[in-house]
């Protein structure tokens, strides 16, 4: 049976909506970041462009577009461009399988996602693991010491923390018995997985900071030692693409955390008036809460030293993840 | 719920399957325990680890003996991936004895070289585990994984003296060429799988039944030959032998002792199971397609190995080339295949020859390398011919046993090596492959020259004014190993019945 999801124009509209949404999210996340950081530091933050500085992102965007593209003469000409393009591309691609909910309209099931892959979770892991190339290539192609160090750090850090992420997610997969994100959300009906898998949630969310290169794990760019690391030598819109990728990645990891641990589009409590609010709104709300936490953490915690970061990933997060898997598996096996 | 949805019915492995891999389980358990023990045992007491490894090997040996009586008749376990049969257990026994002997000579040698770490024993056990799995493997997947398991452990072991350039070079060479060989192996397996649709040997054998002498699937044949090339690398048969001398020379001698014997034993076991008993094609004479290639490789190995060994001046390299030649002799037993007698029955004389030769080669070669290991001086290997000069005057018993091992390698009666050669040559003549036997006899005659040369060296007085080589003390475990291998060489050379009967019984039990 052909549902509305299979029509090409529906798909096209979905893609358009998603891109517009993510770009808007990117723009206003930068504003939110500045506003919240200002509040945390007892400042006002941007408030000149538009009411409450609401047009600030537009001004920033214009600035990025019209600035001069300065690039090192000794760069690797191809790879220098591949880096930023990948950063934006991988971040957008991963979002294709995030489920925002389902609706039953006129006897047709309508999915609020672009592609329904039955190994959605693995798809996301796969695509985000490609994201490391953007950082790395940027750092390598710039032909600058700081950039190269940033690039090297990023590959080491991302690989290490990907382990932690995967291990944290396995607990959820064991409980729901599926890698299909929609199925995982569905199996949280009644009890969100954050209740059953608190350790996995903490592990995932901690590692997510490293995956998105945010404080306290922003070693690849650490401005005080590496002068912005892998994107030291990027300016104007090429830098803008890195910037974009980073913020969209934030949205992605928060969306995954929402879908896996916070019940996705499910309402807070399964009765009226909560379920009058449509699923996608719930999803958005939960993502926003997590985004706020990410920003909050960035402006409150100091940066880890590099060796401590690696130690933390391999010697703390990974063993905890293993323990979580063993315990979850044992409990599930015993209850079966 | 999820399982019920599977498109094909699933069979869950049970207790009978576990019993089928019991020896491997015991050894694997010993391997894991050993790693844990290494954490708590202080550095000065590392010899205890050798003791524990020996204990694990002995326990596994005991289980293997028990299984020999239990596995009658044998059976396939784990959905046809592994054979619990007397053939595998016979090979397991050879492997375990070899591993045990190597572990016994290791602590002293490693201490002298300053590389006595617990990982050594763990890796030896892991490699042995891989070899035992290879001996019983009846699925292409298990064969590949077992080969990789033993190879990985051996790559690391050959680089075990990691601050020494020669050892590192050996590890790297072995790794690169071994990886290359694995590529051949995998490519062959892929083609065989693609053409027959199965990874289980039993089903492949059934699929090959469709082939006849006249028509053959070229891709299947290509797969079979590529598979053979992969094996030929592992048994270091010429022209796939180029890594052997460098790796054998560069690796720590105790490791060379281990891998020169056990890798060949395990790989030949798999070769017999896969080629002689799976790719024979039953009544369809499929083996006639690959037989000439195997015979060619056998002849090349015998010629190249023996000729090259003539010019060596390092004992380790000489033994490496001798190993290449020995691989050629053993390959004769594979090349003649299961011979169809006029009476309509198949004769497995060649395969019995392979098994006998392997047992003989194991005790002899371990003995020969053990002498080099035991006598090695502090911090350096006893490598050059000059090092052996005059050994007989200072250590008459060691020199005598070394001479015996060299005789055996050369195939003189009444040693183990004689009957090994005798059996494979007879099998070749029985199968009507007289040229193969003639090549073998001719090259054996050549080999006598360099074996005797080393033997004579030991009985010469050192040259006047030459610095005398400082041999190490033999030690209790070293003497025990020498006594055991000497006894083994003589027993296999005199009482042929013992091993011959066991080999025949193990072949009767062979299942694919």
């Amino acid at each position: 049976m052909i549902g509305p999801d299979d029509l090409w124009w529906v798909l096209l509209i979905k893609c358009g909506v998603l891109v517009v949404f993510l770009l808007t999210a990117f723009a206003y996340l930068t504003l939110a970041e500045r506003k919240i950081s200002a509040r945390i530091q007892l400042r006002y933050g941007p408030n000149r462009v538009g009411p409450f500085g609401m047009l600030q992102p537009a001004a920033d965007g214009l600035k990025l577009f019209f600035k001069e593209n300065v690039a090192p003469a000794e760069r690797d000409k191809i790879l220098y461009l591949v880096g930023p393009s990948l950063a934006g591309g991988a971040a957008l691609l991963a979002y294709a399988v995030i489920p925002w909910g389902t609706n039953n309209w006129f006897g047709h099931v309508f999915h609020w996602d672009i592609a329904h892959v039955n190994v959605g979770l693995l798809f996301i892991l796969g695509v985000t693991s490609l994201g490391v190339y953007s950082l790395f290539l940027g750092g390598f192609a710039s032909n600058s010491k700081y950039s190269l160090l940033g690039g090297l750090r990023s590959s080491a850090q991302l690989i290490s923390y990907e382990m932690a992420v995967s291990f944290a997610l396995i607990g959820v997969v064991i409980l729901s018995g599926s890698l299909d994100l929609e199925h995982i959300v569905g199996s949280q009906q009644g009890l969100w997985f954050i209740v059953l898998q608190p350790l996995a949630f903490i592990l995932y969310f901690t590692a997510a900071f490293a995956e998105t290169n945010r404080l306290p794990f922003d070693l690849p760019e650490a401005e005080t030692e590496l002068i912005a690391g892998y994107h030291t030598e990027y300016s104007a819109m090429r830098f803008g693409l890195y910037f974009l990728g980073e913020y969209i990645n934030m949205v992605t990891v928060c969306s995954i955390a929402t879908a896996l641990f916070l019940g996705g589009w499910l309402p807070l409590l399964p009765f009226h008036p909560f379920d009058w609010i449509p699923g996608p709104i719930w999803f958005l709300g939960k993502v926003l809460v997590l985004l706020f936490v990410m920003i909050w953490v960035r402006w409150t915690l100091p940066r880890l030293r590099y060796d401590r970061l690696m130690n933390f990933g391999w010697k703390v997060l990974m063993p905890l993840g293993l323990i979580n898997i063993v315990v979850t598996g044992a409990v599930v096996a015993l209850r079966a | 719920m999820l399982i019920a949805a599977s498109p094909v019915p699933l069979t869950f492995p049970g207790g009978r399957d576990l019993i089928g891999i019991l020896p491997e389980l015991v050894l694997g358990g010993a391997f894991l325990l050993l790693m844990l023990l290494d954490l708590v045992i202080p550095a000065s007491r590392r010899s205890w680890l050798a003791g524990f490894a020996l204990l694990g090997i002995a326990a596994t040996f005991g289980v293997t003996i028990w299984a020999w009586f239990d596995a009658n008749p044998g059976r396939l376990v784990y959905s046809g991936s592994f054979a619990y049969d007397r053939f595998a257990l016979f090979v397991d026994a050879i492997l375990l004895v070899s591993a045990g002997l190597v572990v016994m000579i290791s602590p002293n040698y490693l201490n002298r070289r300053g590389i006595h770490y617990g990982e050594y024993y763990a890796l030896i056990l892991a490699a042995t585990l891989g070899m035992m799995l290879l001996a019983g493997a009846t699925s292409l997947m298990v064969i590949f994984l077992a080969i990789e398991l033993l190879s990985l452990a051996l790559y690391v072991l050959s680089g075990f003296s990691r601050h020494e350039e020669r050892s590192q070079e050996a590890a790297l060479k072995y790794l690169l060429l071994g990886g290359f060989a694995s590529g051949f192996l995998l490519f062959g397996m892929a083609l065989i799988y693609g053409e027959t649709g199965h990874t289980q040997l039993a089903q492949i054998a059934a699929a090959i039944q469709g082939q006849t002498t006249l028509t053959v699937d070229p891709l299947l044949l290509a797969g079979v030959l590529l598979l053979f090339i992969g094996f030929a690398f592992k048994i270091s048969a010429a022209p796939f032998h180029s890594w052997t001398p460098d790796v054998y020379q560069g690796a720590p001698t105790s490791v060379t002792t281990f891998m020169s014997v056990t890798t060949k034993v395990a790989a030949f076991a798999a070769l017999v199971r896969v080629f002689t008993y799976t790719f024979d094609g039953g009544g369809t004479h499929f083996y006639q397609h690959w037989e000439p290639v195997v015979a060619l490789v056998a002849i090349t190995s015998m010629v190249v190995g023996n000729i090259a060994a003539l010019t060596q001046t390092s004992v380790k390299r000489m033994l490496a080339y001798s190993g290449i030649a020995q691989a050629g002799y053993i390959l004769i037993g594979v090349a003649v295949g299961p011979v169809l007698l006029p009476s309509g029955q198949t004769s497995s004389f060649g395969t019995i020859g392979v098994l006998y030769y392997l047992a003989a080669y194991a005790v002899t070669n371990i003995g020969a390398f053990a002498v080099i290991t035991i006598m090695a001086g502090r911090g350096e290997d006893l490598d050059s011919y000059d090092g052996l000069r005059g050994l007989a005057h200072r250590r008459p018993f060691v020199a005598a046993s070394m001479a015996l091992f060299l005789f055996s390698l050369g195939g003189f009666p009444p040693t183990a090596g004689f009957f090994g050669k005798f059996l494979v040559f007879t099998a070749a003549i029985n199968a009507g492959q007289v040229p193969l036997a003639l090549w073998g006899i001719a090259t054996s005659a050549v080999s006598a020259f360099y074996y005797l040369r080393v033997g004579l060296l030991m009985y010469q007085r050192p040259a006047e004014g030459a610095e005398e080589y400082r041999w190490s003390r033999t030690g209790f475990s070293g003497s025990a190993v020498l006594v055991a291998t000497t006894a083994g060489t003589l027993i296999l050379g005199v009482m042929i019945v013992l091993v011959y009967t066991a080999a025949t019984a193990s072949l009767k039990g062979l299942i694919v």
Partner: protein
Amino acid sequence: MTVLFAVVIALAAVSSLGVVFSRQTIYSALSLVLTVSMLAVLFLLLNAQFLFAVQLIIYAGAVMVLFVFIVALLSPDAEDRPALDLRAVIGITGVVVVTALVFIAARNGITYSTNGFHGTVVGTASDPYHTFNFPQDAVNNAGNVQTVAGQLFTNYLLPFEITSMLLLVAAIGAVYLTRRSSR
């Protein structure tokens, strides 16, 4: 679908040539990334979503990242050789010919006999690709991951467990060989 196949296969082939002919090591490594990614896409087109994801995560996302990492760390100079010389041309021709032969032989099941070459059909009309027990619809109904898991933990349990042993040995070896100082 066929067009997509062709594009992916062409990309995989071109990028694998890039692995061999790039004069800079980093380009070789990155070409290999592209090759393994394209293989992953091929898996996806063949309806093996699980293999697709695993190929992407493990090869493109982990193994090759380490390759690239090492290349950048050591930053070797570009090789001083022409991109194409006679040997390369011969090599390419050989590879193309062998691939074509293998492909034709596999597709038509050509067998030789004493009276020349003749073709026999491999597989059956309903199952031309030798999928045997795993027809596409059945696998999709049961779920890709579930089918793989079901096979892995029953029929292929032994190879699976040996693999874990293999990885353990590899880890021990790597740790031993790279440990900084002797104890």
